[in-house]
């Protein structure tokens, strides 16, 4: 009997088993290892292809961006909120934000995978579920961490969603990428009673489990009125095609905040 006819079901069974159990701890640990190796390889290549001075300059500029973003968020918190509301903010109202600057060593926005790899990991204090931003806005969320690298799920990922609020009239919605173009996403669950209009800025809210409020998500590009909900298209604040450095926010929403379903 032809050996290939025996091998075919065997190999297919192993492959299907790997697909079925992709999210289990041993395979996730293997993925973390592959992230580490792959990032290291990409970093070597980036190091060869980039000029040393430009790289230093980029890092310095990124650090400056981090400081400016800290300052901007601090000022925004100070001026935009009333003192009464400040007393409820606790954790987020203190105006101190700290970021780690990281360089993107690999990115994939292809038909098979949407992710970013950054050159900072657990050794720099990065942990899962930390927010990743730029001065322009939210980039994504850390989903797995190796010692020196971390994998970031960008806003333009099928499984990514974040709560957003209109800066102008306070309309809430859930920002989700619907596939297709990488510069637009949809703000879902916006009630038809809302007066949201084109051009309004959408920011993150306190509802999020990983990102602080006030980080720009994008600008409303169009509103289609529906019977129950509006269909809101948002031009994303971050240009994913030009990302080279990001800031990882070490500060997360108040961990003491109980979930709504906690009795």
């Amino acid at each position, binding site marked *: 009997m*032809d050996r*290939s006819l025996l091998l*075919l079901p065997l190999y297919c069974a*192993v492959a*299907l088993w790997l697909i079925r159990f992709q999210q289990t701890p041993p395979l996730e640990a293997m993925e973390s290892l592959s992230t580490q190796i792959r990032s290291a390889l990409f970093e070597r290549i980036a190091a060869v292809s980039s000029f040393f001075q430009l790289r230093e300059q980029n890092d310095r500029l990124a650090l400056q961006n981090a400081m400016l973003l800290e300052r901007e968020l601090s000022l925004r918190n100070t001026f935009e909120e009333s003192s009464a509301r400040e007393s409820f903010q606790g954790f987020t109202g203190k105006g101190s934000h700290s970021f780690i600057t990281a360089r993107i060593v690999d990115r994939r926005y292809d038909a098979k995978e949407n*992710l970013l790899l950054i050159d900072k990991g657990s050794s720099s204090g990065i942990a899962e579920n930390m927010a990743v931003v730029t001065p322009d806005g939210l980039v994504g969320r850390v989903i797995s961490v190796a010692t020196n690298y971390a994998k970031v799920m960008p806003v333009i990922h099928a499984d990514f969603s974040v709560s957003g609020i209109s800066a102008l009239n306070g309309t809430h919605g859930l920002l989700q990428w619907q596939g297709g173009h990488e510069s637009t996403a949809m703000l879902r669950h916006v009630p038809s009673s809302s007066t949201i209009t084109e051009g309004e800025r959408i920011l993150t809210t306190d509802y999020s489990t990983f990102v602080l409020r006030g980080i720009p998500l994008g600008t409303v590009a169009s509103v289609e009125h529906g019977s129950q909900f509006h269909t809101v298209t948002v031009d994303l604040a971050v240009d994913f095609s030009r990302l080279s450095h990001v800031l990882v926010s070490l500060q997360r929403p108040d961990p003491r905040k109980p979930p709504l379903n906690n009795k």
Partner: protein
Amino acid sequence: MPKKILSYSLVLLLLTLVQLLLVSRMSFMGITPDIISIMVVYTALRHGRTGAMNIGFAGGLLLGFFTGNMGAEALAKTIEGFVAGSIHLPEESHASASQKQRYFYKGLLIASIAGNTVTGMLLNAHLLPVPLNLFLTLVIGTAMTMLTGVIAYQLLLGKILTRK
């Protein structure tokens, strides 16, 4: 035999790195050429179906290890190896250079169609409707892989295959 396995493993590792580090940068609409498929077809032509499936499965696992899609890549490339196995030309076949070339292109075409059909159904990072994703992966993926295959054959594989 162990020497042959070692040399094929090294070539596979090298091609996987080239696929990840260089070829993946040449994407069109998020789809890239697949040089592992070219190796699978080359193996099918020289060593038959079993060898092609072994290379396909190992190459798929290796590529998937780095991309996070081990199962899908291994499945696609195993099926590519199985399908491409139909073009096996034994060394004693005395096939002419043009016959070998024709067999290689034919094998690459059917293997690429089979592999892209599997990945088009299993992997859809851009969240396109499944039929559209399948269509784009099939048409663009197969075209890009064929183009790369033609270049690889003209530059290198043709010389190896027709060497006496």
